[in-house]
């Protein structure tokens, strides 16, 4: 939950960053694609039942780790985008605390014989 809060905060920063740092249009576009995506996936993975979907934010982070370098960009906005990108990757890998049990999770839709027999993830 706290890890996803971090992703949401970083996503908000990315939406704001092009307005507060010197930026180029392509550099701003990268942040304004990745920012809403990081927030959306952070909210989706907020609760225990949907926590596995946090893995998708690793892709958001990888996009942010690469794309700001390859478009015409300013130094401050590269730093202000790539560092949050790496942080999103780091925050999206650990599962965090999940107290709820949800009948074995989403894999059980494909393998109903595993219901209530698999560790929940």
């Amino acid at each position, binding site marked *: 939950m706290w890890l996803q809060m971090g992703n949401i905060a970083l996503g908000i920063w990315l939406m704001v960053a092009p307005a507060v740092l010197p930026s180029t249009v392509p550099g701003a576009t990268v942040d304004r694609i990745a920012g809403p995506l990081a927030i959306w996936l952070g909210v989706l993975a907020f609760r225990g039942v949907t926590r596995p979907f946090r893995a998708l934010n690793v892709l958001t982070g990888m996009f942010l780790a690469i794309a700001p370098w390859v478009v015409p960009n300013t130094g401050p906005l590269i730093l202000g985008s790539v560092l949050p990108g790496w942080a999103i990757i780091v925050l999206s890998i650990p599962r965090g605390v999940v*107290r709820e*049990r949800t009948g*074995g999770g989403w894999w059980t839709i494909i393998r*109903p014989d595993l219901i209530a027999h698999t560790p929940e993830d």
Partner: protein
Amino acid sequence: MHPLYRPEQTAGNTPPGWSYNPSAWRERWPLLVLAVIGLLAALYTALAQVGVFATMWDPFFGSASSYAVTHSEISRLLPIPDGVIGVVGYVCDLVFGALGGERRWRDHPWVVLLFALVILALGIVSLVLTILQGTVIGSWCTVCLVSAAVSTIILGMGIGESLASLQYLSRVRLETGGAEVWRALWGGAHPRAERPTGRGVGTGGVAVTD
């Protein structure tokens, strides 16, 4: 006993193997409150788009910025303004969020799955529109962002309920070889499928060590 299966906690309306009931009103009423907020935001946007209001309230980006968003080409991609589609979406959200009781994950799986589809569609459209505001349109609209935030929170809080229904339908498929899944989707009774299946569960809901 399997450490993750505690039969005493799967009594009542709670799905087997769950530590809470995703169809309980305490789970669902916050979603309905959020849907009302989203409905009001979409209604206000739609009325501005059809010309009832000349300007939109926007304390952060200014009315001109909101106007640029709500009268952009993207907002007119379909024959009707996107705000009207938002109104329809939130009404569906309210209807399918409110229908059924605290056992609807099992008694009315079709309602739960339709609700999941509605909130997923609203959530995805909100994400795409928010990205387009920042990239293609180049202007922001506070009311639109409020609606997008509300849709996203509803999706994140509400989509988990569909897992309970999907697991139930999966159990019906396993128990009946697929013959009864269609009937179960519309609310047919399947007392056996209410319990977890598989090696670790004996009769009467008593778990057997495996």
